């Protein structure tokens, strides 16, 4: 947008519709390890893919990006083999390209809008973004940006997920003193406790956290706001402003009979044990994860895909995903659904559990399922699943992972009476992230409910700007 368009000749060139494939670990091999599945483009692959881009004047791809990355410009820079410039373009709008390139649902964002998508072969924007970020990482020591002189203002950022990390780094660069509080013993939020190593290597997240610390942000792990200090104590203490980025960590359950039987996990527990506590390296790491041979995962989102694919890698013989709508409605990233299928995960669409049965020792041994069909569209525009009467059947399983989504943890709202929340438990904030409480901003999943990394990061950028304006006015 910034640069004036160069006068271009009409593109006479024939469109290249051969999307460069992502090299991946073979399914049979990756089923047995937690290493990253997608290996990343080589230099040649990236050039080839970038060269497919026709540099559309109207920049439809950019309009599909939640944080408005200047996509054609960074791709152009790759074409010119000018990776420092490509990186600079990316970093104007995203602070976490290595993460977003890997986990963004590009097929519903930039790649959906890409002109070439009309022919079914959008530019692999996410893979190119990842390529540039990986190139930067391979350069070693990351250059620190210039940090503005100290403003003398103190800011508390609560939660170290993508939203919190973004606000912390933005405000630190602007010269504010930032304390970042995290309840868990490792920083990164869902990026470390939820999304598995094989999709997002933890080294990358650690790199981002290190970077934020190098900017002067002080990280306080093992500190729960609402317990160790209330929000009011922060505000009455040394902090001029507070950002809440505590995510949506409270697991939902089905509420059907037998759901508390032994060997029925929430996805949060299953993934936290696996990823944060590294149960896949037990006993080198002390946290175990008990799992049987036939695992059922309930749900159809990214979380369900991650749980199912972890189960495969932890040695399950069969993994079944039970989803109440059809494949088209699945909210998971398309690429991960494909990966899951390649990894021999079995999908049961239009099916929902109505109860769990015990083996006589209070371990789950089977579940009762009900078939559904799609009816009228609901508020979300997706067709509502309605039960088919008399279609109940029983399936033997010995482990269940319930993955129905999450809502915000009520800890902070409960200890802050004047912080307005919705009936879903999300914190009310305006378009700049300002909450109902003076000097408090919020962003990410705590405001939107479970959403995406990029939207959390975007909300962080906007809130940081608004906080900076407040702090310097």
């Amino acid at each position, binding site marked *: 947008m910034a640069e004036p368009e160069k006068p271009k000749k009409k593109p006479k060139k024939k469109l290249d519709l051969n999307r460069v494939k992502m090299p991946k670990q073979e399914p049979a091999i990756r089923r047995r390890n937690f290493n990253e599945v997608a290996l990343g483009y080589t230099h040649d692959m990236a050039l080839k893919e970038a060269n497919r881009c026709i540099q559309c004047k109207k920049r439809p791809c950019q309009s599909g990006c939640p944080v408005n990355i200047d996509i054609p410009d960074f791709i152009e820079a790759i074409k010119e083999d000018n990776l420092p410039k490509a990186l600079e373009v990316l970093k104007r709008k995203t602070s976490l390209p290595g993460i977003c390139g890997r986990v963004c649902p590009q097929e519903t964002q930039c790649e959906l809008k890409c002109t070439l998508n009309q022919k079914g072969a959008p530019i692999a924007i996410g893979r190119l973004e990842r390529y540039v970020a990986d190139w930067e990482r391979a350069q070693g020591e990351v250059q620190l940006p210039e940090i503005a002189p100290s403003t003398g203002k103190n800011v508390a950022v609560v939660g170290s997920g993508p939203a919190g990390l973004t606000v912390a780094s933005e405000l630190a660069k602007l010269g504010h003193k930032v304390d970042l509080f995290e309840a868990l*013993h490792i920083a990164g939020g869902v990026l470390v406790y939820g999304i598995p190593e094989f999709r997002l290597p933890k080294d990358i997240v650690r790199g981002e956290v290190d970077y934020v610390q190098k900017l002067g942000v002080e990280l306080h792990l093992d500190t729960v706001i609402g317990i160790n200090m209330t929000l009011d104590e922060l505000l009455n203490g040394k902090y001029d402003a507070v950002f809440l980025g505590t995510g949506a960590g*409270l697991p939902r359950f089905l509420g059907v009979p037998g759901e*508390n039987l*032994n060997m029925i996990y929430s996805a949060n527990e299953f993934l936290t044990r696996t990823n944060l506590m590294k149960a896949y390296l037990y006993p080198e790491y002390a946290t175990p994860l008990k799992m049987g041979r036939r695992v059922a995962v309930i749900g159809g989102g990214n979380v369900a895909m991650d749980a199912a694919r972890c189960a495969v890698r932890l040695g399950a013989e069969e993994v079944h995903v039970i989803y109440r709508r059809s494949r088209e409605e699945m909210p998971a990233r398309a690429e991960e659904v494909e990966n899951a299928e390649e990894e021999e995960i079995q999908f049961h669409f239009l099916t929902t559990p109505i109860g769990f049965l015990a083996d006589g020792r209070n371990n789950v041994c089977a579940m009762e399922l009900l078939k559904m069909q799609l009816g009228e569209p609901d508020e979300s525009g997706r067709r509502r699943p309605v039960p088919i009467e008399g279609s109940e059947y029983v399936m033997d399983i010995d482990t269940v992972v319930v993955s129905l989504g999450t809502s915000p943890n009520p800890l902070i709202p409960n200890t802050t009476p004047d912080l307005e929340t919705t009936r879903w438990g999300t914190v009310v904030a305006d378009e700049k992230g300002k909450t109902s409480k003076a000097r408090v901003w919020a962003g990410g999943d705590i405001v939107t409910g479970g959403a995406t990394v990029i939207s959390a990061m975007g909300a962080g950028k906007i809130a940081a700007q608004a906080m900076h304006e407040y702090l310097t006015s």
Partner: protein
Amino acid sequence: MFTIVEKEELASSVHRMRVKAPLVAAKAQPGQFIILIIDEKGERVPFTLSDWNKEDGSVEFVFIEVGKTTRALAKLQKGDSLAHLIGPLGRPSHVDHFGHVVCVVSGYGIAGMVPTIEALKEKGNKITTILQVPNQENLFGEEKLREISDELILAAGGDGGFTNPTALKPLRQLVKRHPRECIDRVIAMASFCLMKLCCEITRPKEIPTYVHLAPLMVDGTGMCGACRCVVEGKNRFACVHGPEFNGHLVQGWDVLMARRCTYADEILGQQSFQCSSCSQW
């Protein structure tokens, strides 16, 4: 890092540990717990606070060696440190002037209940404490409990010649005399099976009975759902809604116990529950 400032063996396999953790000490209240991690590869393990000192910023807990983490903890000494410690977690015990309160303790509850009893005492309650241990070699904490209770009843198994092998007989006797000798509240911090039986004893006479549930936990902040239990038909997380619950409203004790022992089969060789070989007994 959290430095260990005191460490003492109280009985066979029972240890007391005091750790510097000023942020935790500043907010600690009776009945709350902490979660600690020994090193970067360690498990998150919960322990109930048995004492704290806001001035020197230290907190104390008593632990029983049962498995990997507790055995590793037992090897640590004064001056060593723990990688992580978070807390105080959970809701504090409900403390008020009730009248006559009967406290049933076993396992770590022998130490974990002390702050609650002290707070109850301060509110002017009369305290009868029933202390259960599997045998005399495992007896600890008796002196402290005797000092803060109006009456202490000891129940021990083994061949010590004790009249009460478990806490159940003395509790039954006390309940029998109710309401002639009134009991206003029973609080138990003990093994699951003992707490469940206490609830059955007090239920017919509707004596308010509160239990401290300690299911498996991971995060301790309401994020994982490992600690869920059904209370009055609702799913509750012991780490944020508890650990103290109205025992008469707790449902599905058997499921809770099965979940608690998910990782016990191999170690305790349990066919079904052999409660008397449980560490909490």
